[in-house]
């Protein structure tokens, strides 16, 4: 049902200046094929939402090496020397978000919440410019939903209606980001016939997935 497209077709869908969520954690569970193709296509001025920036050549790394990213929203960028250099020089604008807040903000956008109240970040730099809500004597930050034009995600298995199954710690941000973008593009390790993923193993229903990358011939 869902169109399986080539990685080049996927890249063509994404314009310069787009806001892009990229799944993965320290390079694990990242759609590496799309990342390399985006970097190779020389995309510009992207806003990238990603948990971390992995290392120079892993995870979202190639996008920084190719100067595709204008603004980065992440929780950790300590192990990527290119990101550190671009941040120091002012080339890269960075918004640091605590990891649990990041995933809840993405989820909030995906499930239609107007925002969430969290104690994480109260009394720290993260609270700057944010509304504090006090309930029953306890302070919370009001954190707003975070959504994207595109979510680029990875999966272990995908069927032709777009159902996704993930494997072990490669799951991470994938099922949450699949909820929170206008267009969701998945790069699975394999595409299987419809009905081959047991209903209880599907972690992202195909109705959320717009495009699936087919393996290059």
């Amino acid at each position, binding site marked *: 049902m869902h169109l399986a497209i080539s990685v080049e077709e996927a890249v063509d869908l994404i314009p310069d200046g787009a806001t892009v969520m990229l799944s993965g954690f*320290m390079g694990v569970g990242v759609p590496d094929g799309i990342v390399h193709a985006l970097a190779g296509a020389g995309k510009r001025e992207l806003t990238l939402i990603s948990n971390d920036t992995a290392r120079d050549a892993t995870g979202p790394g190639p996008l920084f090496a190719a100067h595709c990213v204008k603004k980065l929203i992440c929780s950790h960028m300590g192990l990527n020397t290119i990101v550190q250099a671009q941040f120091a020089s002012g080339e890269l604008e960075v918004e640091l978000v605590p990891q649990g807040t990041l995933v809840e903000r993405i989820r909030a956008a995906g499930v239609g919440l107007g925002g969430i109240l969290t104690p994480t970040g109260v009394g720290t730099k993260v609270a700057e410019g944010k509304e504090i809500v006090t309930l029953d004597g306890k302070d919370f930050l009001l954190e707003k939903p975070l959504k994207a034009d595109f979510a680029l995600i990875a999966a272990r298995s995908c069927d032709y209606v777009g159902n996704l199954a993930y494997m072990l710690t490669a799951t991470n941000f994938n099922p949450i980001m699949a909820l929170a973008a206008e267009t969701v593009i998945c790069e699975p390790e394999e595409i299987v016939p419809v009905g081959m993923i047991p209903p209880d193993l599907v972690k992202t229903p195909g109705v959320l997935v717009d495009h699936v990358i087919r393996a290059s011939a």
Partner: protein
Amino acid sequence: MNPKELIARRVAQEIAPRSLVNLGIGIPTLVSDYLDESLGVFFQAENGAVGMGHRPPEGMTDRHLTDAGGRFVSFVPGASTLDSAFSFGLIRGGHLDLTVLGALQVDEKGHLANWAIPGHYTPGMGGAMDLVTGAKKVIVAMQHTAKGESKIVPECTLPLTSQRQVDLIVTELAVMKPEEDGLHLLERAPNVPVEVIREMTAATLITSGEVPEMQLNACP
């Protein structure tokens, strides 16, 4: 015993049977090496696992099974996978019994700074703000000094990780506990006099009576 092993051995004593524990990168990671496996402790990795085990033998690693540092790990029997929302749900919802983290600074009030040195290096907080804010118990495990400077200070000058006070600080010299009235020196490393600890510590340390030595021999 090298300083890191000493710290890890001492922290291991704080871990209750059957608890859920998150170990940060660096010295905290070593703690699991000194823990009796019969205690049935489950290690959580914030990238989405409960029940992490050691690195598997060469040839048995899998790129879908990694820890929060991206290193290959194994699963113990009874392990489970979580997505990031569930993983931080455990952390923020008070289901994590203990987190052990490193720090750049800790102060007399028990405040911790571990994610940015403005103007020099800003790695980001990753999951640290959530861990320190949400875990039932927070232990800082770190070397007492960096480049000859005390990491235990009267008040943090680096950006804070949380306003929550940590529960215990373990270094290669001492075990310290922040209380209402200040930072208490609870234990000293074997053969380290209290005067040496005070000399190496920028913060004021409160003692009440004799300060006992750490007891490390009970560890496996």
